[in-house]
């Protein structure tokens, strides 16, 4: 095989992986703080895609206005959904199961509501940037480069937020010890809500970035959710940095795996990797027991 093509595939893997990282880090954020496995996370991606589609294609807004708006909408929607459902379940005795079941139900509701509202048509958004970046023998569309840059910038911003802001401190404190966080004056329930919103926003951002290259339909969130799960298992459930590394790793593994087999086996490769990791290191590749 040609080296340039191989490198190109690795780069494409990293680019896909950067999106997986955004999805996975949202799941990790929610699980890390409130120990809730959100099965409706994929639907934030799906809705983020539709928001982007309607804002750019239907309303004709430029992408740099439409994308932040779509992300903001998802943030608000995420918070509202948390406030209306998880908020009540999390204080109950069997919350671990009921939250999983409720978010599963929610995911079905959102998918089918989207189907009724938007129809089953596949919608896509025109490229935000045109042209192809040429680096020696390697050719990458600028659109893909942009995806990667936005993902890295988002990860950097989230890392900064967690490390240096009041909100970030309260999120980290909540994820480490809820009672202790409550005692020092952190409104833990509000932190939950904000984290749910942030996770939704991260999912929507991934959708907005991918909208030009992969179509949006009511079921677009399902494969994304499953990929997100693989990412958080690789990185250790609930770990934000783990999700970032896990996402990039998964992207590259898939790229190499697809080269060795064919693209229809991509998902089998990633799920098998996940089960292998659970077997071997259930706490994740990087974390400690």
């Amino acid at each position, binding site marked *: 095989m040609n080296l340039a093509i191989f490198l190109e595939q690795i780069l494409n893997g990293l680019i896909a992986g950067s999106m997986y990282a955004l999805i996975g880090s949202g799941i990790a954020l929610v699980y890390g703080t409130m120990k809730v496995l959100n099965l409706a996370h994929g639907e934030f991606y799906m809705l983020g895609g539709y928001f982007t589609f309607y804002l750019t294609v239907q309303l004709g807004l430029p992408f740099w206005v439409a994308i932040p708006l779509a992300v903001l909408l998802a943030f608000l929607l995420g918070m509202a959904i948390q406030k209306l459902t998880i908020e009540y379940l999390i204080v109950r005795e069997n919350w671990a199961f009921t939250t999983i079941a409720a978010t599963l139900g929610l995911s079905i509701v959102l998918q089918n509501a989207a189907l009724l509202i938007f129809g089953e048509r596949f919608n896509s958004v025109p490229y935000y940037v045109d042209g192809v970046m040429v680096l020696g023998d390697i050719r990458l569309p600028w659109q893909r480069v942009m995806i990667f840059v936005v993902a890295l910038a988002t990860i950097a911003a989230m890392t900064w937020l967690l490390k240096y802001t009041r909100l970030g401190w309260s999120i980290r*404190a909540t994820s*480490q*010890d809820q*009672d202790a966080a*409550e*005692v020092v*004056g952190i*409104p833990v329930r509000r932190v939950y809500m904000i984290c749910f919103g942030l996770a939704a926003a991260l999912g929507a951002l991934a959708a907005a970035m991918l909208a030009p290259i992969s179509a949006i339909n009511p079921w677009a969130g399902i494969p994304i959710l499953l990929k997100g799960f693989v990412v958080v298992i690789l990185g250790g459930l609930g770990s934000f940095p783990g999700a970032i590394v896990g996402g990039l790793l998964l992207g590259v593994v898939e790229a190499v795996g697809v080269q060795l087999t064919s693209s229809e086996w991509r998902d089998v490769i990633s799920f098998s990797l996940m089960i292998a990791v659970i077997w071997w290191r259930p706490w994740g590749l990087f974390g400690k027991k």
Partner: protein
Amino acid sequence: MATDTDRPMLDVRNVNVIYGNYQVLWDVSMQAHAGQVMAVLGPNGSGKSTILKAIMGLTPVRSGKVLLDGEDITNRPAHEMVARGMSMVLERRRLFTGMTVYENVMLGAYHPSVQKHARDRLEWVESLFPIIAERRDQIAGKMSGGEQQMVAIARALMSKPRLLLMDEPYLGLTPRIVQQIAGIIRKVNAEGIAVIFNEQNVKLSFGISNHGYLLESGRVMLSGSGEEMMKSDVIRRVYLGE
């Protein structure tokens, strides 16, 4: 405050707490006055931790009232307590183990009502616990138990409380560290901060407290000053083995 000097700072009235089908506290009443050190004594499972959690708002109170400075704080969320001048050191320290010492301590001044004094408080806390400044960037979870307890107390003091609750401050610590923590409790009290702590060991407790309550099976069995309590038959027989 000038209106009624006799009014207790903390007034717990007939508090009942029930976990599932199990009643942990039965009509517990107790009072603590400003500037006092108060001990809540009792064996394991007597409810002495639960009463502190109930006061702080970490455990729901089924019936009864908790008043702080005459204001009803029953079942108010714990995160509001800091603004009312009460803070708590949880059982087994409960630091944010993945965060640095500095981050842990500064989180003690997280609440908006105390945030602006954070710098001054940090200086004061560092003067009480030099280890805070020395180990500033260490990950809290990697410290020894005694060191962690100091960070936990420092964190609780950052909000400038008038009342500090300490849940089993001596638990799992060596005798030398226990002496150190007892010294710290005295120092904290000398700053005019009232302290309520719970402990199994009666002798240890009355070394530093002016007043105490004895809980058994969720009920108040006895209360009084340290001296009175040490003289009581129950205490002498059961807890001092005389």
